[in-house]
Structures are given as C-alpha cells and as structure tokens.
C-alpha cells in the first residue's frame, strides 16, 4: 500500500510537470511513431455497403500494438522515481515485449512474468523479450495464464518494492494503476477525435474497441465519453459462446468481485473463486475487467457486447482480404461485432485496431486447419 501511495504521489507530480510531458511527447513522436494514422477502410466499407468505417491504426505503433503508449509512460515515470528494476506480466507477450522495449530504451533491468502455458504458445515472443534484455519467468501456479502472471508479478513487487516498479499492462489492478494506464493510453482517442474531425468534419456515430482488461478501449473512449450522439461499444471475447461458460466476457457474464486490488466485474463462481476463462486471443483471456469499464457499463456511458472466437476469426480474414491489413485477434473481435451489427452502427464508425496480427498467424493457421 505504501508503494501505491508513493506511485500515486509521483504520478500526480508528473502530471503537472511540463518537462515530463515534453519528454513523453517527444518519445511518442520520434520513437513510437505517433500519431498513428486514422485509415478510411474504403474496401471494407464497400463490402458492408453501409457506413464509412475508419480504423485507428495502433498496429502501426512501435512493437505493433497500443501497449507501447503505456510502457513508455510508466518506464519514464519509474526513471523519475529512481527505480531501476522493472517488472511486468504478460499474456500473449505484447505487453511483455513493449515493456522489455521501453526498459531497454531507458537502460532498466526488466523481468517479465508469463504463464508457463503462454510461454509455450508464444515462444517467439519469449525469444523477442530475451533479445531485448529481459528475463522471462514462467509462472507455474494456478491456471498458468495471464491472471497468474499478475499474481506472481504482485508477489515480486511486494517483496522488492523498494527498488522495483511494476508496469501493469492494462487498466486493472489497485489504484492508481487503472488511472495511470488510462492517462498514458488516452492519446489514442485524442488523436482519433482530431483526425475524424479533419477527415469528416464531424464526430463518429460509433466507436468500437475490444475489451480484455480494457486499456485500448479506455484509451480511445476517453476523448468521447459523454459526447451526445457518439455510441461507445466495448467488445468482449465470447470464446466458444457466452452460454458455454468457455469465454472471457466479464461484463456480459460476470458479477461484482475483488481481484488484484480492484472492485469490478469478475468471472467467478458463487463462492467468489475466480473461474477459468477461454478466448482464441490470449490478450482478452482475463477474468476481470478495468473498474472504469464497469462504471461506464453501469452508468450507460458505454455498452458492452461480445464476439465469439469464430466471429473474430472471420473478421481477421475479411480485413486481410479487403484492406491488406492483418489485425491482431483482439481487435478482430471488435471488427467481428461490427460485421454482425452493421445495420445499427450509424453512418460513421471508428474501430480501434489495437495491434497487428503477425503474432497470431500460427493460432489462426491452427484454428483454420483443425477447427476451433
């Protein structure tokens, strides 16, 4: 707790510091490749024959996903706090790679916790992190996936808090993490808002993003929350189907609970034991969801829907063929939801394309060859 107070104080001070933001802004532009483009997906729009669809191209950011926005911010903050050791958790490996990248840039020691199951499924990302100088620790406890990697990172942090900063990968965990991660991700929505006004002269009817923990969704939603006429839709992973229980759609299928220091919705049994989850996309495979999403859901400021493994896989292929873009399986869920609801999204839609799909081609190949 003392560590969280220390973090909150350092974060609050940095939020008022022009120098900090100048440095972060410079890194975003000259290192991470921001602003990322807002692409009018004409052939995809034509395919649907309805609304104009724009893609916020976070897949073009350095390391291939929006994750770098957060890790650059947090590693810069860690440097400012005098912490030379960085730890992180990762599921598919995107956040781990983004953290290892930022830590290498700042010359920080980096340890990444990853479920042993995930280290096997994403062996190439383990190799990538190691080349970037990070130590990858396989987590053998529990279900050996993302939530267990977070458990292990929290255990490390508690033991080494005096020297170590924990770069959490999503808008989850104890305060101030959900706030801090949102502040580093909100650049997505700020850019998108400006870009759509420049391209279309008006705000979109619908903004769509996938939700696991929910960092890319909060990032793009934040600039539009409460805007009349703009519908915000978070798309969760329905896995093999909401009714099968084999999914990770926390808002659609969860109940209030406390995990990793935050009260939010949670996939759990009647006694509060956290349930195993499933999604074709490792990045959405988390039993909780950021507390701010629970709030947006309850207040009606955003709605939460879902897409199945199958629908995501379909959308993956569709975007590749119509636009020449291989999306990650995570935003493929957002696209999959748009595809099945094309009649009700209005005339102008932004989809947050949170990452590129190179990491997923093996999973897609396996799914197409052997079925889901």
């Amino acid at each position: 707790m003392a560590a969280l107070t220390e973090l909150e104080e350092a974060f609050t001070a940095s939020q008022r510091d022009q120098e900090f933001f100048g440095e972060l802004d410079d890194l975003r532009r000259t290192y991470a490749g921001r602003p990322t483009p807002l692409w009018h997906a004409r052939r995809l729009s034509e395919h649907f024959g309805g609304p104009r669809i724009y893609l916020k191209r976070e897949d073009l950011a350095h390391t291939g996903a929006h994750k770098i926005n957060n890790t650059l911010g947090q590693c810069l903050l860690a440097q400012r706090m005098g912490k030379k050791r960085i730890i992180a958790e990762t599921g598919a490996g995107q956040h781990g790679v983004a953290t290892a990248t930022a830590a290498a840039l700042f010359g920080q020691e980096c340890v990444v916790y990853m479920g042993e199951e995930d280290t096997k499924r994403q062996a190439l990302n383990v190799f990538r992190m190691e080349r970037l100088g990070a130590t990858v620790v396989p987590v053998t406890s529990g279900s050996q996936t993302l939530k267990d990697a977070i458990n292990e990172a929290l255990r490390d942090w508690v033991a080494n808090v005096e020297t170590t900063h924990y770069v959490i990968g999503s808008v989850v965990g104890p305060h101030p993490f959900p706030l801090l991660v949102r502040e580093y991700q909100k650049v997505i929505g700020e850019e998108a808002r400006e870009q759509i006004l420049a391209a279309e002269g008006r705000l979109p009817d619908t903004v769509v993003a996938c939700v696991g923990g929910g960092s890319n969704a909060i990032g793009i939603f934040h600039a539009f929350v409460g805007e009349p006429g703009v519908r915000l839709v978070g798309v969760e992973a329905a896995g093999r189907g909401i009714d099968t229980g084999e999914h990770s759609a926390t808002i659609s299928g969860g109940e209030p609970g406390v995990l990793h220091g935050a009260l939010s919705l949670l996939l759990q049994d009647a006694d509060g034991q956290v349930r195993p989850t499933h999604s074709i996309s490792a990045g959405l495979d988390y039993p909780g969801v950021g507390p701010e999403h629970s709030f947006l859901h309850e207040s009606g400021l955003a709605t939460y829907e879902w897409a199945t493994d199958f629908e995501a896989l379909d959308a993956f292929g569709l975007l590749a063929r119509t636009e020449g873009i291989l999306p990650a399986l995570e935003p493929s869920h957002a696209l999959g939801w748009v595809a099945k609801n094309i009649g009700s999204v209005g005339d102008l839609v932004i989809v947050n394309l949170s990452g590129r799909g190179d990491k997923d081609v093996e999973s897609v190949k396996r799914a197409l060859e052997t079925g889901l």
Partner: protein
Amino acid sequence: MPYLVCGYPTPEAFVSLAAACASAGADVLEIGIPFSDPVMDGPVIQRATTAVLDRGLPTAEALELVGAAAASAGIPVVVMTYYNIVYRWGLEKFSLAIASLRGSGVIVPDLVVEEAGSWRDACLAAGIAPVMLAASTSGPARLRAIADCTEGFVYATSTLGVTGVRTILSEKARGLVAELRAVTKKPIAVGIGVSSAAHAQEVAGYADGVIVGSAIVKAIQETKEPVPAVHALVGELRNAVAKR
C-alpha cells in the same frame, strides 16, 4: 500460532491436525480458507490451496470444517482468507458465521486499512476480531491506522513478500515490532518466513505471538503421517517459544 489450510490434506486429516496443534501446545490456531488467486502466499501454501480447490471446497463446507476444527482443537481459531471470498459471502454474513462457529477473528491480507471500515464494523457487530497486517514499509501514520483498526492482535509481517520457508529471518521484524509498540498497546504477532524453532525463539524474545505457516504445511507435504509430524513440529516450536 500454527497455520493450517482448511481441508488439507483431506477434510478428516485437517480436523485431526487441528487437535494435534492444540495438544502440542499451540495457543491459537490460524486456518486459511483457499482462494483461487492467493497473492500473499508462496509456493508451499499455494500447492496446498490448489490441491484443495481442485477437489472443490465451497465456502459453506469450508466454514463447517472451521467449526469442526475449532471444536476438536478447543483453542481460539483465527481464519485467514482473501477479500473476494468474504465479499461474495457478505461481510455481515461471513463475520456472523465465524462468530457462530466460535471463531475469534479473521485476517484478510488483501484488504488495506483504508478500505477496511465496513468490514471492521461487521466484525465488531458479530463479536469477532478483524486482524490487520502491518509491514515495514507502512510508515508511522499507516501503522497507527492499522493498530487502531485491528483487534485481537496486529499481524506484523517479518519480511516484505509472500509466505514461505526461509532460512534466515529478516531483521526488519524487530524494528517493525518496535515501531508498532510506539503506537499501540495491542498484542503483536509476527508471521511470514518464521520457519524454525530458532526463528520462533528469536521472535518470541520481542513479539507477543509467533505465526508459523509454510513450515507446517511443508511438514504435512513431506510425510505420509501428517498428524504425528505436525504434533512434533508444533511441540518443538512451543518449547522454543517457552525458552525465550
């Protein structure tokens, strides 16, 4: 104060182990109700809680077992579990259940003092003790808040980090206890990393209670006859504490 995992290694053996702890001289028994994501626990206790959860242990059954253990041990029982278990059961309902089983208190390691108000009220209304944890990084203001909030005793964590067997006991425990003494007259028990009779004797020299968890669970894991093994270990710890 030995620690047992509720229902481990089997429900029957667990109840016998509770009695063995008491007959070997334990003053208080701590019982952990397993949770799927035990962030404060190290590998030894995780292995035990995972085994119990793989078999399945609904909270209703866990509470029944706590009652059976309390009855067979005949010494005060303190339950340790994570907040989501308590939250799902209901704060009032859970504290009343513990009271009706003649439990003395509950430790919720992932509940911070800043958020503990309604839980403390529920415990006091039910007549049980909300036991709070203190760490060497807590700082004077939070230590005071923790000492004010806790009842029964303060759980002083000897080291930063998770439960587990350690060969060297951190020197931080002594300093933390001294800091706590300056802000409270409530008893102070030291836990986490207290693994041997030598540790126990040392801690008993400056604290009011000694909590031994992983070393006991490990002893259960390393034998086919857990009841005599735990009886012997608790007896050894008891003697060491008496020698201080």
